[in-house]
């Protein structure tokens, strides 16, 4: 448990320190440093036995998510260092804002890790709410009209969502309290799992609906998704990367924890149909939305909605194969989407625009970046040999074998989104490169700021996962898949 405490405490201390450190270079380095320590600490978890206490729990479900979160946190902090150097250079950000930015970054990591490792449902809720607050502040970092608008929308919608989630949490306690008696136990996940079979299903059902809608808003499920594209598009790109790569996963993780409770109860309504419906809605809506997008970051934000839809659908289907696919897809989407946002961040910086039609020929002007972006989109589109292919393979085949009629909209949705992704990535990566927005300088002559290591590190992981999954990970996935019902 002390290891978990270290993992959670490191970013908290980091936030405090970074709030005081002047100078963006030092800040960025410290940011990387704290993230690295967090990652190292989280890697230690792999060597320990699963355990749970009153506050924290480490089991098959969150052990890899914690490590994944810490890893993406680190790579994003590396990317962020190069990113902000450019933003400072062009005068879009200043030192004061950056101090705030770095502190908030670590605070955000703290809330993410806390939400993942919390055993107490109330603590988990507080952490998710904290995550909302920190990211709202970062989305509005540029203080442009559009970014404030986006932050505001994000905040209101997620505020309502989080309120509904709290209500769900309270309902969960109300349901458990008659069986488990008053006190902390009735809010502790591991305890609940032990007693949930005896809990009356009626309130449990009600609680799950509120939790699904509440946390589902944060997951970005249609029709609760409206905040997501704008928040991704208007904030700094590193934040878009962690929003898509981490926050959505954490919110979904929260939903799934409750789904496990329902599955273990046995008498409660099957949450599957609800999740399937919302997953399909997200998938189809986002797939169609992709076609009309002109802002590259908003485009990939919709792609995140699409994938969250796929994942939710998978967990809605349930069963060992679909659940496995969902868990794998969560990890793969997290890595791939953040990689795409790194690449997009670089692309936007070299071309000076976020409009898709004004970016072209990246494989010609900046081959390493262009091919990296292409590989990322290829991976997220579900093409082999990347990991998303494996999860979509499992999901589509197992769905069709069990519910052929559900597989059709799934496949149609995936194909519709696929068409848009390929269309746009061809535009971005191929053709003749143009000029930097608002100047006569050819894009090809603009040097790339920062390093592409995070991008390629993520792609390498996704590639490896596409052909080979390590044994322990498979064992975790299978254990969790069994619990998810």
């Amino acid at each position, binding site marked *: 448990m002390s290891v978990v405490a270290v993992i959670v405490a490191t970013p908290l201390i980091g936030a405090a320190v970074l709030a005081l450190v002047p100078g963006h270079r030092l800040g960025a380095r410290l940011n990387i440093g704290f993230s690295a320590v967090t990652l190292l600490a989280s890697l230690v978890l792999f060597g320990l036995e699963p355990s749970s206490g009153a506050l924290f729990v480490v089991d098959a479900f969150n052990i890899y998510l914690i490590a994944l979160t810490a890893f993406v946190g680190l790579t994003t902090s590396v990317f962020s260092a190069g990113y902000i150097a450019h933003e400072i250079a062009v005068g879009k950000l200043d030192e004061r804002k950056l101090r705030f930015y770095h502190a908030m970054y670590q605070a955000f990591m703290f809330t993410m890790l806390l939400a993942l490792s919390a055993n107490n449902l109330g603590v988990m809720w507080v952490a998710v709410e904290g995550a909302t607050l920190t990211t709202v502040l970062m989305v509005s970092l540029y203080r442009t009209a559009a970014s404030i608008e986006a932050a505001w929308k994000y905040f209101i919608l997620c505020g309502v969502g989080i309120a509904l989630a709290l209500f769900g949490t309270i309902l969960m306690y109300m349901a458990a309290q008659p069986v488990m008696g008053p006190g902390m136990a009735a809010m502790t996940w591991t305890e609940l799992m032990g007693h949930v079979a005896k809990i009356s299903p009626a309130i449990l059902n009600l609680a799950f609906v509120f939790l699904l809608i509440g946390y589902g808003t944060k997951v970005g499920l249609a029709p609760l998704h409206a905040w997501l594209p704008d928040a991704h598009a208007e904030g700094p790109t590193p934040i878009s990367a962690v929003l898509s790569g981490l926050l959505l996963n954490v919110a979904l993780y929260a939903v799934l924890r409750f789904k496990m409770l329902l599955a273990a109860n046995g008498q409660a309504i099957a949450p599957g149909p609800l999740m399937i419906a919302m997953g399909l809605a997200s998938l189809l809506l986002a797939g169609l939305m992709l076609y009309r997008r002109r802002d590259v970051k908003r485009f990939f934000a919709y792609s995140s909605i699409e994938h969250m839809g796929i994942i939710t659908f998978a967990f809605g289907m349930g069963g060992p194969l679909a659940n496995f696919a969902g868990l794998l897809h969560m990890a793969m989407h997290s890595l791939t989407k953040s990689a795409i946002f790194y690449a997009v961040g670089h692309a936007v910086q070299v071309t000076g625009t976020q409009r898709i039609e004004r970016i072209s020929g990246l494989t010609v002007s900046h081959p390493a970046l262009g091919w990296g972006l292409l590989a990322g989109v290829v991976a997220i589109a579900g*093409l082999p040999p990347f990991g998303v292919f494996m999860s979509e393979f499992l999901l589509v085949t197992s769905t069709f074998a069990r519910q052929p009629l559900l597989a059709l909209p799934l496949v149609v949705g995936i194909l519709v989104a696929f068409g848009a992704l390929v269309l746009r990535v*061809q535009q971005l990566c191929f053709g003749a490169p143009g000029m930097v927005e608002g100047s006569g300088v050819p894009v090809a002559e603009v040097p790339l700021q920062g390093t592409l290591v995070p991008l390629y590190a993520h792609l390498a992981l996704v590639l490896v996962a596409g052909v080979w999954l390590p044994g322990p990970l498979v064992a975790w996935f299978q254990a969790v898949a069994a619990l998810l019902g």
Partner: protein
Amino acid sequence: MGLVVSAIAFLFAVAVVGAAAKRLPQAPTVVYGGTAAACALIALWAALRLAGGGADADLVLPVGLPWIQAHLRADALSAVFLIVVNLGGITASLFGWGYERAHHESHGASQDGPVLPLYPLFLAGMNMVLIAADAFTFLLSWEFMSLASWLLVLSTHRDPETPKAAHLYLLMASFGTACLLLAFGVLATAHGDYSFAAIRAHAPAAGAAALVVALILLGAGSKAGLVPLHVWLPLAHPAAPSHVSALMSGVMTKVAVYAMIRVLFDLLGEPEWWWGGVTMGFGALTAVMGVLYALMQDDVKRLLAYSTVENIGAIVIALGLALVFKAAHTPVIAALALAAALLHVVNHSLFKSLLFFAAGAMLTATGSRDLNRLGGLIHRMPTTAVLALIGAAAISALPPLNGFVGEWLLFQAILNAPALSEWSLKIEIAVVGAALALATALAGACFVRLYGIAFLGRPRSRAAAEAVEVGRAMRLGMAVPAVLCVVLGVLPTPLIRLFEPALRLLVEAGPFDGRAYQPWFWLAPTSAIGNSYNGLIMLVVIALLSVVLVLGIHRKASDRVRWSIPWGCGFDGPDPAAVTQYTASSFGQPIRRAFGSTVFRARDHVDMPAPGDTRPARLSVTWTDPAWVVVVEPLARAVGWLAEKANRLQFLTIRRYLTLIFLALVVLLVMVAVTQR
């Protein structure tokens, strides 16, 4: 088996070298040499396996889906297709090496996207499909193959048409993959055992099997180019560099055929009689439509791509026949039809590669693929002209070349229709036979047009008038398939014998079973219609007669020759633009009138200047592809319309978004309230 896997791994290594092409001047040599060597190794291995009876070779790699791992297996069927793919790979590498050099010399540093790193990956992908023995590995390789070829198509991304073609291509490829995914979803057992061995062990129920057949026809058919799923093919295949076009058209479509055979004959177990009927029907439609499309094309490579559609149709007809006869428990006839299919697979891969190489040679020499800018190349490019003539004759199914042998076998199978019991099938087979005959005859017209316009007559542009013969590597790349076209046409029996293990695996019989007299130079399959054909004797007799004829004539006749200007209705000058000769469009006119005006809404528009005006008259032809009008455009419009409608959701006010959340909540609550009753 380890050898094949190592060779594929070697292809990946070669790709890495290709990625460093900017820094390594020898990279093209290494890449194309490496791919040729790897392909040769695999092809040789496969041929030796087949010669040794085609026993299965298995390997399980600890990758892929964790609970089943990657199963690899090369059985007789895989071996046959390994030969096809790698033979194509060898010739394409030879040609590609010369092609790359020629382009490097003429254009300097290339503006195009990379080909070198992707080309070996494409070959590796195709090989992997053939040896995959579980659904995951199979589809992974399948989609990887699509991915690599998509990027290869995009290597000409500066051409404004290419991105559209590439987009449609990858979309259709993924549609196909999705169909295959669904099909394997039905086939796999409930416990997630996706290995082919497990699938084989569990025959699906009748309804499920019907679903699988439909999905396979859609999935593999979209890759192979079955009408109406062919729309991407004539756009994407020509866009790639010519040796890649050759691989895509000549070889990758065969991988799709492999997928059909693997599922329909191997994994699905005992077929129902109507499977073959449906398959055949699609094949016939594809064959006729494909060649009609080809007849209306002015772009050499696009014409060849449409011709691929036609040939795939012929192959699919043969597959359908084999299925029908297999279901009717006449395995020997099924073997005959399947042998025709496999033979045509080999043949088409040879002559289509050859013709695409020839198109590449023309492109290198003249910079154009437009028939109306070519002409008279037989004088400037003599070797290419001879080799292309062999290709054109072979694809037109002229004896004694290989195209005819496949055709002949197929007709032998068709003539066995009376052995069936279903009336509908008998009549369908008659109609399919007529369609096949029509397609074959039209193919002849199509290639007379292609060859006549491109190589014969007078040049239609300065570039064509000044064309220079291509280099030795490119000529060699064309010569190998050309020689094979002749050899296989004359001696097909040894090849069919070589394929026999595959036939026995799939239909449990060979095409020669029960016939006593079987010399290796004679083609006399077992059939209710007893027959034989011998290309070797035919060739020898033709040669003898020709010698007799030439000697006889020259003894009697005058040897005087005078060169003169032919009568050209008063138009005759050195300017290529002022030559009065038939163009590609005018050549196609009679057939266009006969077939195109209803199916394709083909219209000729003549811009005739008034008397006294010296402006030339212009003929333009417009036509529409019904598959576009019926399938693609409505779909694109539907997606566009829905996207436009959905797009309104991007611009709502926060209050309305909240309303959405509220409504979602209320709906879910109502659902809970209702289900709790």
